[in-house]
Every structure is written in structure tokens, then in C-alpha cells.
């Protein structure tokens, strides 16, 4: 198992290096004058000259790449032209909000998606199954940003059940920062009122975000369960007189969801992508809304830093998924 983990970690090195090369090319090589691009739209010639010197743009390209590597290693990604603060500290401050949101959405998608997929498989070709198929294909076809606005329209503006935007109401002091996740921090500090407020705020964005994931998880679970139901051991268990519900929810499900876990890594990419628009709509102070602001204000360094950070998180998530997969199914560990 240790060998598997180490090999899996090694596999990620080339693609992370490639990611560095890619962002380097986008940042330094493609723009006509990278110094001007980095300095922003309203920079003075003196500022541009300072940047040219600091980044070594008068040096040969390989040397520039080494400078870039050193900067990334030191988490020195430059200052945002938008906020004036270092990009790395902006991202570090906003990352917990995005992780909390995506994790909540993924958990919801899994908890709801797996039972729905299982039921669709057990009752396959029934009316329930057909409705589920339309719902799951529809879930993947809905534009998350539009769905978010419709939810706001109905539950915040019309019914006034849920808050319209933000992580907490404006003016509410944030819980003491321990993990950066409001739901966790408020519980750790015993502030149930804040927990309740944070929960109300996260509900709509998380529901929006979970939609696509829920549809995928339900579909993969359905396919997996249908496959497993054909296996000999199911017939054996039936013959041995096990209750049908026990066979399905324990033995069949355990043998089916293993393959579905690998999909969660892929889903995470889709989640982060939808998070960009969803965060912008709900004013959720994460890296998605940060990226949107960066784009609207041509904040070059910020957008490339987000690309880099998301790439790294994506790699970490996929490693964790593969390790989980190997723990659940030891045969996987043999293949690497």
C-alpha cells in the first residue's frame, strides 16, 4: 500500500511540472509585453520598468522560468492589481470558503445521489427509473448560474425563506478562525446561532452546485448496481434467504460504489468550474468569485494564480480518490 501511495504521488510530478510550464507560457511568453500585462491597465512606465526588472524579463527565457519556479516555491505570486495585496494571501484567505462550499455540495450529492441511483437500478425500466433518467440528464443540462438565480428568485426574493447572498449577513461577526470553515468553526466555538446562520447561507449555493454532481453520481451508481445485481453472489445470497433489502443496501451497494468513487475526482473539476459562476451570483467570498473579479478587471496574476492553485487542488483530490479506491478495493493497488 505504501508503495502504491508513493508511486501515485510520483505520477503527479510530470503533470504539475507541465502545469507550471503552461502557466509560465501564458504569463510570460504569449503576451507581447508581459511586464505591461502584469502591471495592469493603468500602470505608469516606471511601474512597468520595475516589474520588468523584478521578473527578469530582460534575461533569457530559461532563466525567467527558473525565476518563476523560485517565486512559485516561495508562494510569491505577485500583488493583485485589484486588491493591492499579495495574490497568495488573497487566495489563502478565500480558499476555505470555496472548499467548504464544494465539500458541502459534494456531500449532499453523494448522500442523495447514491440511494436514488440504487433505487433506479433495483426498479430498472420502471416509471421511477425513466423519471430518474430525465432528471439526471436534465441535471447535467441545466446552467448552474441560471438555476442559482431561479432559486434566489423563489426562496430568497419571493418566499424570503433563505438569505439572498453571502456567507453570513452583512455586519455579523465571523466565528473565530480555526479551520476557516464557518460551519465547523461556529460549532467548535459553541456559537449555535452562527452555525444556523451559516447553514442558511450555504444552502442555496451548495444545492445549485450539487445538481450536476448528484446527476452523475446517481447515474454511475445505477450502472454499478445493475452490473452487480447480475453477479452470482447475489443469487446465492437470495437462495440463502437473506432479506432483499440487506442484499441490496449492504452487499450489492458495497460492491457497486467502489467504481463510483473514482468519478468523484472528475466531478470535483466540474464542481470547481460551476463554483466560479455560482460564487459570483451568491457573493460567496471564495476563489471562484475572486477569479471572476480578476477577469473583469484584467488582473493577470490573480487569474493565473487561481489556475495554478485549482490545478494543484485537483491533483490532490485525484490522489486522495485513488488512494481511497485502493483502500476499498485492494486489487487497484496491484495495478500501479
Amino acid at each position, binding site marked *: 500500500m505504501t508503495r502504491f501511495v508513493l508511486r501515485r504521488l510520483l505520477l503527479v510530478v*510530470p*503533470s*504539475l511540472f*507541465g*502545469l507550471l*510550464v*503552461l*502557466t509560465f507560457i*501564458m504569463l510570460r511568453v*504569449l*503576451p507581447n509585453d508581459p511586464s505591461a500585462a502584469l502591471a495592469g491597465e493603468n500602470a505608469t512606465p516606471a511601474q512597468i520598468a520595475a516589474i520588468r526588472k523584478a521578473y527578469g524579463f530582460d534575461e533569457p527565457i530559461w532563466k525567467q522560468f527558473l525565476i518563476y519556479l523560485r517565486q512559485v516555491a516561495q508562494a510569491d505570486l505577485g500583488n493583485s492589481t485589484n486588491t493591492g495585496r499579495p495574490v497568495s494571501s488573497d487566495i489563502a484567505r478565500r480558499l476555505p470558503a470555496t472548499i467548504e462550499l464544494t465539500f458541502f455540495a459534494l456531500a449532499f450529492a453523494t448522500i442523495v445521489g447514491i440511494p436514488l441511483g440504487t433505487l433506479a437500478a433495483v426498479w*430498472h*425500466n420502471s416509471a421511477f*427509473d*425513466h423519471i430518474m*433518467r*430525465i432528471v439526471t*440528464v*436534465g441535471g*447535467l*443540462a*441545466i*446552467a*448552474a*448560474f*441560471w*438555476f442559482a*438565480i*431561479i432559486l*434566489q*428568485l423563489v426562496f430568497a*426574493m*419571493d418566499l424570503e425563506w433563505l438569505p439572498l447572498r453571502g456567507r453570513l449577513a452583512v455586519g455579523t461577526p465571523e466565528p473565530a478562525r480555526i479551520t476557516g470553515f464557518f460551519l465547523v468553526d461556529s460549532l467548535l466555538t459553541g456559537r449555535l446561532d452562527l452555525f444556523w446562520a451559516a447553514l442558511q447561507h450555504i444552502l442555496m449555493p451548495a444545492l445549485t452546485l450539487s445538481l450536476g454532481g448528484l446527476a452523475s453520481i446517481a447515474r454511475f451508481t*445505477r*450502472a454499478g448496481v*445493475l452490473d452487480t445485481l447480475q453477479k452470482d453472489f447475489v443469487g446465492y445470497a437470495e437462495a440463502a434467504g437473506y432479506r432483499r433489502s440487506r442484499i441490496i443496501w449492504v452487499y450489492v451497494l458495497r460492491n457497486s460504489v467502489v467504481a463510483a468513487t473514482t468519478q468523484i475526482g472528475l466531478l470535483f*473539476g*466540474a464542481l*470547481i*468550474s*460551476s463554483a*466560479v*459562476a455560482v460564487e*459570483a451570483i451568491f457573493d460567496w467570498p471564495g476563489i471562484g468569485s475572486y*477569479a*471572476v473579479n*480578476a*477577469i*473583469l478587471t*484584467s488582473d*493577470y496574476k490573480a*487569474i*493565473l494564480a*487561481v*489556475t495554478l492553485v*485549482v*490545478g494543484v487542488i*485537483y*491533483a490532490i483530490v485525484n490522489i486522495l480518490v485513488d488512494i481511497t479506491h485502493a483502500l476499498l478495493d485492494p486489487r487497484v493497488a496491484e495495478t500501479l
Partner: protein
Amino acid sequence: MLILKKFLRDVPAVLGFVIIVAVILVALVAPPLASVESVYDGNLMERLKPPSAEHWFGTDNLGRDIFARVMVGSQGALAVALAVVVIAIAIGVPAGLYAGYTSGWGSELVMRVTDVFLSVPQLILALAVAQLIGKGLESAMLALALTYWPFFCRTVFAETRRVRNTLFVDALEGIGASRWRILLVHVLPNVASPVIVRATIGMGFTILTTAVLGFLGIGATPPSPDWGLAISESREYLPDSWWAVTFPGLAILVTVLGFNLFGDGLRDLVDPRLRRSR
């Protein structure tokens, strides 16, 4: 004809096909029929009117007819998605054929580059690329195509590798067929069906992503009747003018649903291993 019969029995896939045909017809017919006033100029006396017999989907903040705009908007949505998918195929398929058929450092290089592109979620990468090449619909299109080809490359690579190891390719090499001949005449038709399936689903996916870019303000620019842009323009008139946001979103939903349902049905036809129900 067996395959057609099989397809016709798949009701959701047929529904998808019907939707696609309907959207294509609307995209061809609507632009010449719609008046410039109702789509672009508007009539401020008629602004933010709810749906009625005269304006089926109501009017927006400039008094433009939303039904006309949604219908005309289908043309842009289809054209952009088609362009993106065609460019992505034009890059991804040759790259995948090359990497799959040859082995060596060239093939390795192509696949590693593919890996790098796939190691960042497509939308994030497209945002960065769009930022780099400037705002506007053309650059958004290019950004989406430049980040979408790796999906085709992966698919074609896997299929080509599979076909390369079959006996008939060995035999062709044995009788001295040229590499071009083998690739174009014998390998390409074998990889075509997964590419077509991916392209169909990719059309829906790209319409969604383009709408997101339009919504975020880096795709189509006003006064374009782009669906994503329309949703973002009408957002500030909520909750009173709900129709201005609702209908463009429904148009996206129906169109993408059509491509997804059809793509799903196609996949079942060409790849029985992935069949949904047995």
C-alpha cells in the same frame, strides 16, 4: 436498418433528436424573420412587460421582445458550439491518431501535454486563456476550443491504440500499406463513433460553457441576443421581471438536454458495453 429500429425504440434519444432538429430549424428561420427593432433596438415604451399574446415571453429592460431574442439567440449558441467542437476535433483527432499509432518521444509529448490540459478544470483554463487573448465572443470561442481538444485526443488515442494491436492492422502493414493509408482508411473509421458521441455531448457541454462565459461578461457583447448575456443583463430587474431571466435559461436547458439525450442514445448504439439497461 436494424440500428435505426433500435434507435427509434429509445424514446428519450428520439426526443433529443427532435429537439436538436427543432433548434436547428429555429436557428435557420428565426434571424431573417425577426425584426431589428424587436431583437436589437427595442421600444422603451414597452419595457419590462410580462408575457402576453403580443410578447409571448415578455419584454426586457430595453423593451425588446424576449421571444424573438431567444429564438435568434439559438443561432449564435449553435454556431459557437459547432465552431468550438470542430476546432477541437481538428486538433484533437490528428494528435490522438499520431500519439496512438506511433510510439516514442513524440507520442509521449502529445499525451503529456494532454494530461496537463486535463489537470485543470476546462472552464478555469478557458477563463485564463480568454483573459490572455482578450474579451469578446471570438476569443471566448478560441479559448474553449483550445481547452477542449484534449478530450478528443484522449478518446482517439485510446481507440487507436486498441486498433493498432489488431490483426488486420498487422496484416495491412505486412502487405506494405502506407502509414497514411492505414491511418486514414482503416483506423479513422474505427475511431469515428466514439468521436461522434463525444462531439454530440460536447455540443451541449459547450453551449453551457459559452453561456457561462457570456454571463460572466467575457463572451458575447451587447446588443447580442446571447442567452447567457441576456440572463446577466436581466438579473437586476428581479424579482419583478422574472420572465426576462427565466426564458433564456429555459432555452439553454432545452437545447443542452436535446444534445445530451441524443448523445446518450448514440453511445448506447455504438457501445453496447455501456448500455444503460439490459
